[in-house]
């Protein structure tokens, strides 16, 4: 644990240095640092939402303005005795109002994604700015003066240097706690692939709301302190739309999604515009514009690289003997029941009256030529698709209406055909997402992850970034992630597609190992060799309906299967020779 002690010592020394600085620096330099802390704190708060969850907002100037006006109006209408009390109350109210606004906005706005979310937030901040400047009670038009709150003996720039340093510390602390907790994994899942996230049990809306409210609250607090530091606030200087976009540029420059990125980006831009280019006359916008453009073009992923390529292992827990207790006891009732499922797409019957029952603890394979409706069947079971008719039952309980999140909670996990790893994260972290949001819970998530690594033979690749894995390993990572959630029923969608011989055998070994542990597996696969080797039971689908069912040997011999697979034989000769060749 020597490493941790050094780290703490370094932080303490850093803080001592930062607090001593003002006495050494000139007032101008102190003000530059004050502006730097202000920008860095705002960028860090924005990054929690934009970087960690991948939701870019162009409207954070709205929260800044709400904080500023809350503090200004509070100290104008309410005498709180000492100036310090006015500042603290102002910051508290600013944070609270911004957080409440975010909470109210959360449900409607967080349903939007990408550019639509960004523009919606821009719209919100513009509405607030217009209301502030045109509603008399908000006095944004005429402007509000704020009382000086710094202690008489201390220079204002030194005082606000401390205030904004504190706010930056708070902002960083919140960002760090998010990064090291279960929340971070959930957010990574949301950022990387929000459609897959619920399948792994990540409560996407709840997590997005938490992060949105936190990010807004901090921005509101900073807005309040900003109002006091200026001493006079109007709608323009409070809801500065350009600040709303500047903080995005800071994060882009530093490295979106990293902890130090926003800090680095803010430091560079403030230093460049206020120190190096301080005395440029009449070309301020030209230089800033060209600066922004070149930065984004030259460093698309920012200085620190995108999404924290060097991701620290987050939960250093002791490696306990990996045990994977078998799923909760099950009799011999079928785990999964489908009766006459029909799915109709604009006139095309993808599935017509398909019924099947999956026995527990077995590998149940579904095969059929391309385009027979296998994937559609899969989407019905994993609640991606509501069947036009028919019922799906899991352990007796009807699930065809359930949300994917609820399904994964009740023990159904799906391994995708096109492996969807979280590119920016290591192999271990990818599996941790499955473990954390599965049914094992954070305490022994680490142990379950180790077990999953061992079963899928990925232990020595644990720190590799997922993006660099070849297809074979990616497929095993997908399985490991599913195993880590300790499901009862695994739905594997063509796990062997595109694998070479050895990789296919690995996957088959893993599936066999899971069956031995009592898990039930439904397999959709093309590779007939795999089907024949590992399936306990096979069901053949062709042109949307079930044509036969039974053990692998029975099914392969059935003429209807051969015909469905190889197409209608042009001449009797061909079919004759084929049937005899099959032993």
């Amino acid at each position, binding site marked *: 644990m020597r490493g941790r002690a050094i780290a703490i010592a370094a932080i303490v020394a850093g803080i001592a240095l930062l607090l001593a600085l003002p006495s050494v620096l*000139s*007032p*101008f330099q102190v*003000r*530059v640092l004050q*502006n730097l802390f*202000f920008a860095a704190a705002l960028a860090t708060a924005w990054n929690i939402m934009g970087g960690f969850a991948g939701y870019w907002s162009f409207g954070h100037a709205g929260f800044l303005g709400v904080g500023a006006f809350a503090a200004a109006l509070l100290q104008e209408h309410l005498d709180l005795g000492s100036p310090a009390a006015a500042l603290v109350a102002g910051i508290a109210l600013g944070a609270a109002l911004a957080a409440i606004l975010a909470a109210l906005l959360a449900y409607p706005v967080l349903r939007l994604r990408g550019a639509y979310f960004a523009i919606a937030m821009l719209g919100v901040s513009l509405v607030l700015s*217009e209301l502030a*400047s*045109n509603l008399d009670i908000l006095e*944004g*038009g*005429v*402007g509000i*003066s704020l009382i*000086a709150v710094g202690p008489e003996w201390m*220079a*204002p*720039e030194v005082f606000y240097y401390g205030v904004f340093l504190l706010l930056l510390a708070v902002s960083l602390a919140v960002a760090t706690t998010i990064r090291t907790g279960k929340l971070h994994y959930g957010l990574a899942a949301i950022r990387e692939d929000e459609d897959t996230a619920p399948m792994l049990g990540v409560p996407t809306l709840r997590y997005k709301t938490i992060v949105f409210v936190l990010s807004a609250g901090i921005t509101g607090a900073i807005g309040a302190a900003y109002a006091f530091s*200026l*001493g*006079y606030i*109007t*709608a*323009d*200087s409070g809801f*500065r739309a*350009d600040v709303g976009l500047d903080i995005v540029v800071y994060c882009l420059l530093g490295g979106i999604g990293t902890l130090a990125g926003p800090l680095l980006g803010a430091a560079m831009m403030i230093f460049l*515009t*206020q120190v190096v280019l*301080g*005395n*440029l*006359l*009449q070309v*301020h*916008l030209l230089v800033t514009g060209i600066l922004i453009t070149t930065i984004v073009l030259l460093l698309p992923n920012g200085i620190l690289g995108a999404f924290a390529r060097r991701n620290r292992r987050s939960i250093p827990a002791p490696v306990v003997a990996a045990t994977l207790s078998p799923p909760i006891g099950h009799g011999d009732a079928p785990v999964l029941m489908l009766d006459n499922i029909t799915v109709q797409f604009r006139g095309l019957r993808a599935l017509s009256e398909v019924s099947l029952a999956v026995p527990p603890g077995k590998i149940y394979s579904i095969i059929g030529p391309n385009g027979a409706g296998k994937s559609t069947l899969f989407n019905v079971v994993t609640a991606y698709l509501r069947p036009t008719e028919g019922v799906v039952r899991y352990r007796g309980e009807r699930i065809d209406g359930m949300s994917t999140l609820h399904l994964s909670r009740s023990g159904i996990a799906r391994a995708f055909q096109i492996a969807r790893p979280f590119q920016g994260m290591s192999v271990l972290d990818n599996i941790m997402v499955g473990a954390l949001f599965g049914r094992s819970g954070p305490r022994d998530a680490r142990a379950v992850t180790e077990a999953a690594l061992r079963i899928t033979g990925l232990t020595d690749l644990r720190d590799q970034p997922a993006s660099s894995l070849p297809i074979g390993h990616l497929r095993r990572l997908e399985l490991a992630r599913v195993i880590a959630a300790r499901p009862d029923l695994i739905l594997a969608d063509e796990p062997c597609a595109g694998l070479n011989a050895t990789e296919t055998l690995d996957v088959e070994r893993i599936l066999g190992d899971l069956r031995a542990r009592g898990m039930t597996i439904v397999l959709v696969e093309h590779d007939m060799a795999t089907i024949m080797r590992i399936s306990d039971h096979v069901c053949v689908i062709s042109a949307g309906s079930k044509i036969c069912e039974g053990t692998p040997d029975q099914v392969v011999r059935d003429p209807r299967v051969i015909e469905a697979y190889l197409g209608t034989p042009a001449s009797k000769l061909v079919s004759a020779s084929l049937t005899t060749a099959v032993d």
Partner: protein
Amino acid sequence: MTSMTRRDFTRSAAAGTALIAAGSRARAQTAKTVTLGGSIPFSGSQANTGLNVYEGYKVVVKYVNEKLGGFKVGNELCKLDLQMIDDASDPQRAVTLIQKQIDEGVNFFLGSFSSAIVLPTVAVTERARKPMVQAGGGSDQIFTHGYRYSFGIYPRASRQLNSFVAMLKGMKPQVQTISIAVTNDPYGLPLAAGATEALKEAGIKLLETYKLPPTVNDVSGVLSEIRASTPDVLLAITHEDISTLFVQQMVSTGTDVKVLYMPLGPEIEQFRKTLGKYSNQLLTLIYWEPRVKYSDPIFGNAQAYYEWYKANSSRVWSNQSVAASCCIVCYVTAMQKAGSLDPTKVRDALAALDFTTMYGRVKWTPEGDGDPVLMGPTVGQVQNGAPEIVYPPDAATSKLIYPMSKWAERT
């Protein structure tokens, strides 16, 4: 510009040569540079007015340094060094860069343009006990903080329309009703509040006050209500772009009023050029006019200043540029009266100033804004393309045309 009478010309020439003679003798000594700091918005919505203020500063500094070869403070020859920074309408940037100038030992500051920038920066210079003379921030709140080192050429916004309302009271036939259109910003709202107060005392009925957002592209809605309520007077307190829009749309929708008063717009030449004959008979707020007969300690008189301005500036003069020039004249005079370059001594000299400059009489209220009566604006009216002073009578250069002729009858 009416032709100069011979007498005026000789008088100003004599005054000018006297100063030059003093200046040449002094050139032998090495001159001490006195830096004037401060920030200007070169981008953002106030950029055009910011540029006019900057021209006003540059022209006087050039005259003092090059024409006069400097100015004497005690027995020391000084030259002026203008160090303005671009605050890009960002208060944080302005405050930071002005702090830098204070650290570098700049003792005297000139103000930026909009109140949102002037207020935070004046707090910094006040704390550093450096005087700031500005011709930009009109908002009352600059002068209600009890700052001692802050001086503003313009009287606080709420008192700027006193002369206009006084004129309305005395106009025959009687003015009964008035409507106000005002932009929601720190300059417009106090101006409107002051006017509303004065109108109540004057017994003129205020029909409606239309409040407008800072950016607007259509006022036809307001105009159709005005056509319905037919007020005698329309007072439009809007920045130059919206003032132009107002006149354009009043003309194109045939909305006529007896009196149209716009504090910002008609006094700017580009505004009059754009609107041509439709800018005639518009009333505005005039602080200065090339034909005024004021003497000036540096230029000799207003005419000499105007000639020098035209020769040395790429932009046409405006109220703000002359007021900006006046700031520097005040500084130079105060330094010479204080006989020292110590900021606090100069500050005391500034506070005591009561003299005539090419801009007019300069005397400050205890809070630092221009004395509303002495430095208050006169009422001007655009008559065949040029602004004429029409009120108060003693300063008038022409008779008020009232009521305004209809837009359609303009030739």
